[in-house]
């Protein structure tokens, strides 16, 4: 099994396939009145000459095509481009408000959804016809747009995709147009990946596509849309960038009806909330059409509107119900005709993850004279569409604590092209046939308001937006400055005051108090934080505690982390758990020691903290008292830690750096927060606190192992790159470095549970700490030179050489590669180039047994077959042969004797 899904390895046998990456202008956005965009002034194609890369430009559209996605991405990053600065925005001035009417502003974004997986779009352009495969909806609208873009016939455009309900446009439409332009320029199939850059950026640039202001009297009578700015339907960006957009592409009556119903029904719901009136009653009061009133009544009865949804008592879920009604006049404009729709939706909102589920949807429709009365529609396909299109758009930038589902990066099934067939009939509109979708967005917005009290005045309702809105609502109002000052002083005193109150014990929360999504998120936080590594004794039960930690101040033992009320954390309320995690104070008010890295855990976000609590409380409870700590006086006086915290603990939450990328911030959040990487990799001062400044991440000795430097001071002979850091963290092995051993092995095993993007984010963040490049073509040459230099036998090391020949060479001498040969050259191993021999000696004594780390391999322990003298000889030989440029290690004998003690105990 290969845990890396490699975007460079296409899952297709089509050799003609190329990979495209587009470059957007530095400034581009759709304002309600105009498309604002930098103009392309100059492209320096020469800069990429001879690299097998094709640069495609068309107006302000720029794309790079290469033989692999990675090569295209790299070339795109290096392509020199000059852009103009766009004119100032044309800000739409709002009309002055002159009366006392109620007013609300709504927005409709240009992109409502992302596009289903797999997240690749492949386009092939043959003989004037286009074939597209990927998460692209086969709609007549998109075909018309692509035909306009390519100046081709819509009948010659074939899309391998289902016809989709027309709720709103999706990001894959932009990718489809990009791929189409690139494929036409290349004359061969081109694959484009739905990466957040640029497609989530596109969604952001198009977020203000349409703005609507509604006003009405306080009782909701006589309401109207005052102000209607912008675009109903926003065609793919490529059309805007190439300047090939025509006016008729912007018309979309279905979308207009959907948007109009959204603002009308949201507004009426706001009026009902303000009046304290039942939303259905208010609508019944408003609807003059008897058939419409009849339909709404019938749907409300079917949905049992007056009976609240069942609450199963989950602490992290809130529930709500919403209603929306629309009456779309028929083309004749006859008042008694047209399509009436009434929908009622139930939602479940996860307040921790921001995830929204449509737990129920009841929808009815009456087409009046134009069609049959359908008091109940089959709502399950509608529900799927709503969930996919309204509830899943990633936001840019995502919050640093967002946990992504592992992305499926596989290419769609793709066979070598045949010319697209001529098609007479457009694809059948599978879902939208006969079903008017107008109330779809309003009904979810109103249900969300009922559940959370937050009014969403624009779709979509993605987890990130929902969570941000919930957090915003929970935040207390702005404080006056003196009040803030007084609080700060009180906070200081509270920190310094050595005796903290206990937090009342609670009954152990039921294991099903939290929803499965929250618990799963908590599991990932626990894996990222490696809770179980410290809270599990050697060979003991997971999270039962009892693992000893030798510190300069004495021996500490980890404690029982299972929800046992007496010996674990079963009677800890969330408040108590959070205080322990952020401030290092136990439930009973005792100070905890910073061997428990609350100094890092303070950076964990509120949502992740909740989720972690949910996860731990859902685990089986096991009674196991922790062994008594064995600390020397005065370190056994816990209240001393109050002063320590004042000096060394910064309990402030993690703040993303807005000048850095979302990936960097995600990496920083994982690394500095739950991951607590600095707890081992940063040396500590006399008081056991992590040092700052240049010493940060400069490497330290922990539990008899050296945690190497994660800065430019790294002693790796071949040098790290972001790519090799990712491989190391993901598989436990990097070709040019070595394998994860010692206390790093369980860290890698934990990371294996995390989505690939998270591990990439950590690698990216570490790479910036090391000033390491993304990749380095010279790395393998450098590595080969280091390995070649180690072939020569050192002089005067014959004793060690004999030990090596007997004990090590069978696997470590790369004569003939066998299945059990070591895959990494010793000459490239950072440990042999370090200033200390500790990790080399540890590996010889204890071997390498990295369970759960696929790439680490296995090496037997030699503690019981090699004497101290033999190990010293061997270590000196290894140093002389594999790190010939370094000075010999000193006091190896003493270190061997010291480190052997713990191996002898086993």
């Amino acid at each position, binding site marked *: 099994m290969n845990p890396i899904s490699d975007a460079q390895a296409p899952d297709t046998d089509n050799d003609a396939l190329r990979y495209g990456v587009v470059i957007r202008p530095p400034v581009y956005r759709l304002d309600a009145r105009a498309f604002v965009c930098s103009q392309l002034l100059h492209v320096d194609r020469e800069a990429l000459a001879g690299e097998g890369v094709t640069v495609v430009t068309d107006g302000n559209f720029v794309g790079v095509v290469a033989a692999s996605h990675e090569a295209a991405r790299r070339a795109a990053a290096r392509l020199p481009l000059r852009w103009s600065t766009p004119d100032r925005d044309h800000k739409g001035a709002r009309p002055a408000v002159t009366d006392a009417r109620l007013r609300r502003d709504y927005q409709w974004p240009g992109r409502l959804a992302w596009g289903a997986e797999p997240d690749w779009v492949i386009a092939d352009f043959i003989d004037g016809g286009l074939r597209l495969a990927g998460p692209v909806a086969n709609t007549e609208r998109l075909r018309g747009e692509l035909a306009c873009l390519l100046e081709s016939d819509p009948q010659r455009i074939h899309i391998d995709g289902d016809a989709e309900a027309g709720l709103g446009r999706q990001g894959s439409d932009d990718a489809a147009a990009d791929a189409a332009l690139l494929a036409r320029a290349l004359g061969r199939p081109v694959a484009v990946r739905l990466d957040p850059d640029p497609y989530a950026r596109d969604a952001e640039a198009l977020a203000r596509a349409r703005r609507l202001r509604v006003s009405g009297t306080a009782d909701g009578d006589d309401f109207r849309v005052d102000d209607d700015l912008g675009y109903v339907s926003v065609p793919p960006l490529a059309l805007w960038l190439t300047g090939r957009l025509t006016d008729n592409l912007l018309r979309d009556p279905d979308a207009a009806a959907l948007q109009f119903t959204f603002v009308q029904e949201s507004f009426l719901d706001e009026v009902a909330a303000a009046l304290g009136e039942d939303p259905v009653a208010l609508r019944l009061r408003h609807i003059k059409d008897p058939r419409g009133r009849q339909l709404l009544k019938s749907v409300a009865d079917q949905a049992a509107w007056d009976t609240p949804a069942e609450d199963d008592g989950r602490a992290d879920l809130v529930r709500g119900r919403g209603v929306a009604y629309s009456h779309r006049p028929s083309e004749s404009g006859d008042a008694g005709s047209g399509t009436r729709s009434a929908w009622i939706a139930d939602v479940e909102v996860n307040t921790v993850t921001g995830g929204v589920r449509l737990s129920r949807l009841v929808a009815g429709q009456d087409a009046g004279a134009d069609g049959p009365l359908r008091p109940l529609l089959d709502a399950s396909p509608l529900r799927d569409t709503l969930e996919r299109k309204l509830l899943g758009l990633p936001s840019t930038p995502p919050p640093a604590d967002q946990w992504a589902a592992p992305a499926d990066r596989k290419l769609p099934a793709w066979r070598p092209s045949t010319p697209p067939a001529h098609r007479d009939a457009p694809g059948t509109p599978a879902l939208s046939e006969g079903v008017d979708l107008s109330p779809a967005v309003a009904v979810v917005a109103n249900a969300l308001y009922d559940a959370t009290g937050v009014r969403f005045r624009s779709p979509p309702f993605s987890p990130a937006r929902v969570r941000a809105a919930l957090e915003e609502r929970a935040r207390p109002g702005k404080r006056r400055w003196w009040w803030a000052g007084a609080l700060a002083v009180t906070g200081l005193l509270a920190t310094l005051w050595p005796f903290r109150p206990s937090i009342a014990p609670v009954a152990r929360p039921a294991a099903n108090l939290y929803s499965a999504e929250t618990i799963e998120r908590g599991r990932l936080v626990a894996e990222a934080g490696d809770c179980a590594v410290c809270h599990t004794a050697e060979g003991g039960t997971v999270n039962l505690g009892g693992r000893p930690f030798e510190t300069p101040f004495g021996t500490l033992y980890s404690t029982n982390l299972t929800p046992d009320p007496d010996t674990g954390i079963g009677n800890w309320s969330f408040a108590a758990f959070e205080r322990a995690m952020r401030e290092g104070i136990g439930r009973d008010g005792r100070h905890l020691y910073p061997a428990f890295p609350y100094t890092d855990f303070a950076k964990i976000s509120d949502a992740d903290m909740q989720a972690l609590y949910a996860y731990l409380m859902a685990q089986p409870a096991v009674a196991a008292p922790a062994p008594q700590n064995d600390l020397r006086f005065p370190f056994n006086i816990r209240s001393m830690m109050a002063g320590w915290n004042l000096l060394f603990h910064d309990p402030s939450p993690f703040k993303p750096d807005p000048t850095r990328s979302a990936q960097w911030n995600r990496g920083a959040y994982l690394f500095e927060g739950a991951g607590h990487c600095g707890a081992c990799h940063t040396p500590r001062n006399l008081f056991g606190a992590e040092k700052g400044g240049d010493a940060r991440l400069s490497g330290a000795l922990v539990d008899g192992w050296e945690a190497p430097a994660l800065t430019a001071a790294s002693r790796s002979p071949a040098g790290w790159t972001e790519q090799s850091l990712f491989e190391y963290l993901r598989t436990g092995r990097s070709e040019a470095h070595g394998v994860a051993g010692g206390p790093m092995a369980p860290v890698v095993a934990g990371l294996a549970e995390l989505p690939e993007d998270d591990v990439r984010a950590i690698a990216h963040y570490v790479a910036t700490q090391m000033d390491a490049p993304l990749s380095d073509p010279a790395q393998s040459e450098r590595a080969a030179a280091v390995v070649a230099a180690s072939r020569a036998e050192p002089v005067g090391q014959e004793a060690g050489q004999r030990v090596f020949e007997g*004990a090590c060479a*069978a696997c470590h*001498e790369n004569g003939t*590669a066998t*299945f059990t040969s070591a895959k990494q050259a010793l000459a490239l191993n950072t440990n042999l180039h370090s200033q200390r021999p500790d990790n080399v000696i540890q590996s010889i004594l204890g071997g390498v047994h990295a*369970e759960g780390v696929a790439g680490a391999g296995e090496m037997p322990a*030699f503690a019981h077959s090699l004497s101290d003298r033999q190990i010293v000889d061997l270590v000196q030989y290894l140093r002389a042969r594999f790190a010939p440029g370094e000075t010999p290690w000193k006091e190896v004998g003493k270190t061997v004797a010291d480190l052997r003690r713990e191996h002898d105990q086993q």
Partner: protein
Amino acid sequence: MSDALHLTVNGERLAVSAAPSTPLLYVLRNDLCLNGPKFGCGLGECGACMVLVDGRAARSCVLPVGTLTEHEITTLEGLGDGDRLDPVQDAFIEEQGAQCGYCLNGMIMTVRGLLNADPAPTREAVIAALDHTLCRCGTHQEILAAACRAAGLAPSASQGEKE
């Protein structure tokens, strides 16, 4: 308590009950009664425990079984097809390449692994492949002759003085 693991040994899919960290050699000899691979040093140094994993030589005393569930394991017992020996085994008989015979499993399996990767190796490659497969009786010349014969090379560096 250990769960059942599934191993493919000599073409057969077998369930064994062992902790994932158990060395493959122990499972082969103790659970599956395949005594072709021998216990020598237990530290991957001598090669007496050699088996093939996916056709490549592997020291089974240092391989945790838990990592091998997706691989094909072949022991000395699985080399021939019941009636006929593997050509490597024939060559060792022909050259009488044994004294006590304890190391022979390692020698034969190592040569088989080499020939799987390179059907026509040089004499130097044969020597390098056998470099860390140890014989304590001093039968190296006969073993090397057998290995070379199996590899289609002249069995001995000196002139053929056979018979």
